[in-house]
C-alpha cells in the first residue's frame, strides 16, 4: 500500500515536470532552490535583521567568543574584539536588560524612540557652553580630555535580535557617560599647567570635581593649591567595568572586571580593592538601571543631582 502511494507520488512529480514547458520544469528551479538553501544554511540560516547584522551559527558564535577573548587579552587595544566578545556572550544578559528597560517608563520610552549618542545628534557647542558641573559640560570635558568621540563605538554585528542589538548599542554609547557619572575621567593631564604637575604622573588619585584640601609637595615646593592629580586610565576603566558588571550582568563586563587589574602594581591594587571597588559595587547594587535614564534630556542637570537620583554614592576621596 505504501509502495503504491510512493509510486503515485513519483508519477505525479514526473507529470508536473512534463516537457510541455520546454524542459524548464520544476526540476530546474528546485535545483536552484536547493543551492540557495545550502547557501542560506552555510550563512547561518538567517537573513540580516538590521544594517550591519552578520547572521552566525552557534558554532561560529562559540569560536568568535573564544577568539575575541584571546585577542582582547593579547592586545587590550583591540576594542573591536571586546565589542565582539560582548555581543557573542550576551545572549542571556541582554534580554534581561531589555526587560528591565521595558518595565521602566523612561527605559520604555528609550526603547521606543531609540536615541543615539553621536556627533551628528549632539549639539557639542551648546553642551560645551553649559555651566560647570552639569552633565553636558562634564561629558564634553571628558570627551575632549581623552580625545575620544562617541562615534568610535562599534555597531552591533552578531546579535541576532534587532531590539537587543539596540540595547547593546545603547550600553556602549552610555559608557562614556558612566565615566562622567562615576567621576572616573581617564586622563586629566591636558587640563593642568605643567608647573603644578607632580613628578610621578601615576602617583596620586583624585576624582574630578572634588577639591583636594591636602597641601601637596610639588616639585620640591609645598603648595596649598588644590591640585587634582592625574589619574591612571587603567584604574578608571576597571572601576567603571566593575560598576557595569554589577549593573548589567554582561559576561564581557565581568571578564573585563576580573582581568583588568591583572597588570597593575600592588599599591594600585590595594587602592582598588580597599576603596574603589567596594564603592563601585555598592553603587552598582544601589543604583537603578543606568540604561533607564534618558541622558539626552538631562544635559542641564548637575552631575551630583543625577548621581543622587540614580543612586550612585559619591566617589571616595582616595589618597595614594
Amino acid at each position, binding site marked *: 500500500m505504501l509502495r503504491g502511494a510512493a509510486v503515485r507520488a513519483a508519477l505525479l512529480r514526473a507529470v508536473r515536470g512534463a516537457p510541455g514547458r520546454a524542459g524548464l*520544469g520544476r526540476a530546474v528551479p528546485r535545483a536552484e532552490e536547493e543551492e540557495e538553501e545550502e*547557501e542560506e544554511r552555510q550563512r547561518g540560516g538567517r537573513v540580516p535583521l538590521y544594517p550591519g547584522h*552578520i547572521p552566525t551559527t552557534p*558554532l561560529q558564535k562559540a569560536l568568535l567568543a573564544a*577568539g575575541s577573548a584571546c585577542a582582547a587579552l593579547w592586545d587590550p587595544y583591540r576594542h*573591536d574584539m571586546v565589542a*565582539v566578545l560582548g555581543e557573542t556572550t550576551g545572549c542571556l544578559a541582554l534580554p534581561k536588560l531589555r526587560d528591565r528597560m521595558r518595565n521602566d517608563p523612561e527605559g520604555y520610552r528609550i526603547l521606543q524612540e531609540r536615541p543615539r549618542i553621536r556627533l551628528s545628534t549632539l549639539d557639542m557647542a551648546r553642551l560645551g557652553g553649559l555651566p560647570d558641573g552639569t552633565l553636558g559640560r562634564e561629558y564634553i570635558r571628558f570627551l575632549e580630555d581623552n580625545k575620544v568621540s562617541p562615534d568610535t563605538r562599534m555597531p552591533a554585528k552578531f546579535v541576532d535580535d534587532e531590539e537587543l542589538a539596540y540595547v547593546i548599542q545603547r550600553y556602549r554609547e552610555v559608557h562614556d557617560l558612566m565615566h562622567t557619572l562615576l567621576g572616573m575621567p581617564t586622563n586629566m593631564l591636558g587640563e593642568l599647567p605643567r608647573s603644578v604637575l607632580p613628578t610621578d604622573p601615576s602617583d596620586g588619585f583624585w576624582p574630578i570635581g572634588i577639591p583636594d584640601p591636602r597641601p601637596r609637595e610639588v616639585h620640591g615646593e609645598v603648595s596649598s593649591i588644590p591640585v587634582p592629580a592625574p589619574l591612571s586610565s587603567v584604574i578608571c576603566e576597571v572601576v567603571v567595568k566593575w560598576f557595569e558588571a554589577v549593573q548589567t550582568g554582561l559576561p564581557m563586563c565581568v571578564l573585563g572586571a576580573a582581568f583588568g587589574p591583572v597588570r597593575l602594581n600592588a599599591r594600585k591594587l590595594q587602592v582598588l580593592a580597599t576603596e574603589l571597588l567596594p564603592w563601585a559595587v555598592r553603587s552598582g547594587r544601589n543604583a537603578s538601571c543606568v540604561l533607564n535614564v534618558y541622558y539626552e534630556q538631562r544635559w542641564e542637570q548637575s552631575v551630583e543631582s543625577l548621581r543622587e537620583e540614580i543612586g550612585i554614592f559619591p566617589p571616595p576621596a582616595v589618597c595614594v
Partner: protein
Amino acid sequence: MAAGLCPGRALLSRRGGALWALLGTARGRAAGPETHFGFQNVSEAERREKIYQVFENVAEKYDVMNDSMSLGIHRVWKDILVHKMNPSPGTLLVDVAGGTGDIAFRFLNYVRSVRERQLQQKLRHHQNLSWQEISKSYQEEKSNPLGDSQVVVCDINKEMLKAGKQKAQHLGYSEGLSWVLGNAEELHFDDDKFDVYTIAFGIRNVTRIDLALQEAYRVLKPGGRFLCLEFSHVSNPLLSRLYDLYSFQVIPVLGEVIAGDWKSYQYLVESIRRFPPQEELKAMIEDAGFLKVDYQNLNSGIVAIHSGFKL
C-alpha cells in the same frame, strides 16, 4: 524526460543566466551583464569594485591571514608551484595578481640557487684554472647572481602592491624585481614577451577569466608556459564536508578576530565555491589556445595547479 530537463539545466547553470537577469532587473542595475560576488548576484562593474575593496581592506594582514587560514600550508603550495616551474637563470617571469610577492620572491630564490650551483659546477669541471679565471668566476657570481632572470609583479590593487614592495624591502629583495599596476584582463605588455606567466590565487578574483587567459596567451613567448595555482574542487565526499565546515565556520571567524573583517573572508570562501572545477578550467585554458594543458591536484583538490604551453 531527462533529455527535456538537461537543456534547461544547462541554461540556468551559469549564474548569469536569463532567468536571473530577469529577476535582477527588478533591482534596476544595468552596469554590465550579471555575474557573481561570492553567493550574491551583481553586475560586472559592481563585482570589480567590490573585489577591489576586499583586497584594499585585507592587504595589510594578507600574509598573516594566509598563514592562519591554511595553517601555513599555503607556503608549501607556492613552493611546489615554483619547483614545477623549474626556472633556469635568464627566465623572464610575469606574476599576475602577484600582490604581496610570494611567488616572485620564491622565483628569485630559486634562480639564485640554480645560478650558484651552475657556477660551482663550472669551477669543478675546470681542473687547471689560473687565479685570474677563478676570481673572474667569483666576480661573475657577485655581479650577476640572478643570471639576468627577472620577475614583473603585476597587480590591479595599489594596496597589495604597496604591501608587496614593503615586504621586498624588509626581506632585502631588490634586483630583478619590478612592480607594475595592471589588470589581468588587459595587460599593458607587448606580445610575446615573457617566458613564464603565473597567477597564484588570483584568477578566482578576475571577473572575465576568458579575457585574462587570452591576455596570458598574448604576452607569452612561443614556447612559454602558463601556470595557475588556485583553489579548486574536492571530490572526496568526507573531505569535502570537513573542508566546507572549516571554510564556512572557521575562516570568517578568523577573519573577524585577526583582521577585524568578517565580510572579506566570507567572500573568500564563497568565491572558492563559485570557481569552475578542475576540468572546466582546463577546458577554458585550452580555449585560449594553450596546448598540453594539464592539472595537478594538491591536498585532494583543495588546490590545483593548471599548466599549459603556448606552442
